[in-house]
């Protein structure tokens, strides 16, 4: 409808900003990863979880988040590393993608950084990134010379279905 035109005429005071996105960064296996802040709903300390038998080893169990039951995944194990003793720095990042909620156990929280689109490059096809982590990394962000591996939250949430095929190949 003509509303669009109208908007253009009147809206001469358009404010131009570079398209920057905010990322929650965290440490896991000596790397720094970033998750788009849109997907992060909160950070909680590690709490008692109920293990579920017969599930993938990276699924540590279920936790009770204010009456909501959410699964927690250890990012280290998910990315194919050894599990570490949990310390008091160990945190759980609760992410939410399209209604699915998942807790991610990480070694520690770094903070929130802003990364412009121009600072994000595609991940190298051959790289030092842990093989199993690679499929979740959609880009590499550089902030002040530091490298952040940016994760695709949607893939993290949906991976359990693809798992069957890919795991078979790996083994």
């Amino acid at each position, binding site marked *: 409808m003509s*509303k669009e035109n109208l908007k253009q005429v*009147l809206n001469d005071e358009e404010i131009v900003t570079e398209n920057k996105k905010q990322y929650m960064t965290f440490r896991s296996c000596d790397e720094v990863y970033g998750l788009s802040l849109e997907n992060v709903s909160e950070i909680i300390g590690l709490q008692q*979880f*109920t293990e*579920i038998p017969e599930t993938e080893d990276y699924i540590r169990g279920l936790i009770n988040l204010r*009456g909501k*039951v959410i*699964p927690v995944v250890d990012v280290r194990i998910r990315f194919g590393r050894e599990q570490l003793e949990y310390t008091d720095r160990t945190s759980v990042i609760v992410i939410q993608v399209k209604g699915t909620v998942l807790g991610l156990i990480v070694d520690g929280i770094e903070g929130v950084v802003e990364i412009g689109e121009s600072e994000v490059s595609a991940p190298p096809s051959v790289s030092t990134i842990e093989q199993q982590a690679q499929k979740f990394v959609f880009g590499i962000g550089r902030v002040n010379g530091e490298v952040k591996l940016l994760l695709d939250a949607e893939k993290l949430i949906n991976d*359990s279905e693809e798992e069957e095929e890919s795991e078979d190949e790996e083994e």
Partner: protein
Amino acid sequence: MADDMITEGMLDMFIFETEQGLETLENVGLDSRDAGEFDDDHVNEIFRIMHTIKGASAVMMYQNIATLAHKLEDVFYFIRESKPENIPHAELLDYIFEVSDFINGELEKIKEGSDPDGVADELIANLDTYLKKIQGSAGGGSAKKEEAPPAHAPEEDKPHFYIAPVASEDSHFYSIYITYSPDTDMANIKAYIAVNALKGIAEDILFTPSDIISNPDSASVVLEFGFKIALQTTETADVIMDLINTSSGIDQVEVNECTSDEFLKFCAEAEAGNHPGSSAGEVLLGPIEQPTVRTDAKPKEIPLTEEEEKVSVARKAEKEEEQEKKKLAPKKKKPAKKAETQSFISVNIQKMDLLMDLIGELVIAQSVVLQNPDLKVPGLDLSNFQKAAVQLTKISSELQDAIMAMRMMPLKNTFQKMNRIVYDTSKKLGKDIELEVIGEDTEVDKNIIEHVSDPLMHLIRNSVDHGIESNEKRQEIGKHEKGKIVLAAKNEGGQVWISVSDNGKGLKRDEILEKAKKNGLLGNRSERDLTDKEVFNFITLPGFSTKKQVTEYSGRGVGMDVVVKNIQEVGGVLEIESEEGKGSTMTMKIPLTLAIIDGMIFSVAGTNFVSATNAVSEFIRVDEDQLVIEPDGEEYVMIREICYPLVRLNRFYHMSNSKENLSDGIVIILNHEDRKIAVFADELVGEQEIVVKPIPSYIKKVKGISGCTQLGDGSISLILDIGDLIGK
């Protein structure tokens, strides 16, 4: 059109009313079937319904529905006015059902958002012929009556039309409250930019102070009192937030969804301040101070603390969640009979579900309080606390009963649908079948009713199609009574039993056994060991059908296995009884409700499991010498001369750090249908009312676990599904 549904959109209202009308129409039709004619009440009722549908669909500009309804109305107008004798009833009944089916089909299209484009010409022509026929047979004696139908126009109202908006998402109303940092320059212009940003998505937008462009003084007003916008749009609050945030200087934004009434009120008040000559200041003295916007009008509190901001974000999130739920809310509502409406209100089922969830949470919270470890300080005098606790427990359990009762609905509507199915199916198959309905007032949880309808329909069709013999066959074998199906419901110890019985040919044990053998379903069991029940149960296995021919009504690939699966989904079972030559009875045994159950909690290697208390027949300590190990490794325990198969949960789930010696742990005997199994766990934890929650979908299905629940201490426990565990 009833005024009590004012919040419904025009289209929803039309669909709801028409569906209700058609339902009554069908019921009236079925009622009259045995009598073989319509009595005066029926005729009036049908006339009224068709008149209403015709009127409403004309307003909505659904011409095809209106024309068809008009035609049937004409027929009944003639019947009402001329009272012709001996009209062919069965034929008319068929037309009524055809009309009902046609309109229902069109309604489905409308619900999906497409145009009702069906063509009913043939049906209209048939009705026309029919009308002429009965007019003819009513005798030319009353010539003036023949022109009656077209002449009843005078009572018609002036035509009205409702032009539905082009299909788009439902629009929402929002109230938006923006505050600017106190040092912002030209806040009025900034506010206008925000308004402008919204214009692209706005169906309607109003704001106050409204003279932000013409009156430079309004800047200070905006700074002091904030800026309010009423917006109607199909977009979500998120989009609105993003758009508003494109303008600068904003300190805080609140976006709340509101109802159209609040929206209108806001508009009216904003406009009241819009009279020429009013300055921004006056506007403020007037209407804005009133809480038209659902946020508290905050006085000029300088920068809000972070916490406050969080609160508003949280509130926003809640709102969105609510919105999300609203979108999912089913359009269907519990139809209420006209005469009963005075004492009933219809409540959105979504709200009921919410209430149910909340009560579930309350029950959990209650056990968190009552079992709080803080209370376990030695020497603490808890007598008053205990008294209060008893009272609390009593009230919350009554509350549970009350909400359960509210969710209960009689099976009547579901059963009535079956009436139509028997009618249609038996007619097409040329079988003479009557349906008897018993206990249609039996009440079941709304959610369960939804799950019952499909399997029931299948069972009924099976009975009509396969169960009852053809008329000729019955003659031949000397069955003289009419084919009959009995649909019965009753309450039975916390369960509802719904049974479908027929007096048809029954199940052929030998034939079923034969086929089961061929398909290798017997396993290593000998034929003789099998009870009738077990044999009949074979027909519920996937891919099993003794019927060689596939007919239109049943056996179309979906067999009894689907029925059983549906019933199991709501925690029910299907029982089959049959006597060859005499008929069969299929009984669905279904729990009254799903949500809150009594659970027995036991732990294995630190993980808590729950089983429904009514499935637990006993728990007992067992010595090693009661253990029997078969050569193939299967374990059994002998308890009082009875041998139970043993499942060690720790081994079953490969859990370490648990008790291995039988005498150290506990054995729980669980029932599943007719079978009992012994489950070995570390220890018994206790008993609690539990609220069943699904396992998050991220986690793949684990054998034997059907859900999870929160315990009194806030930890999570897994719900054990015995049927699944033993791989029934």
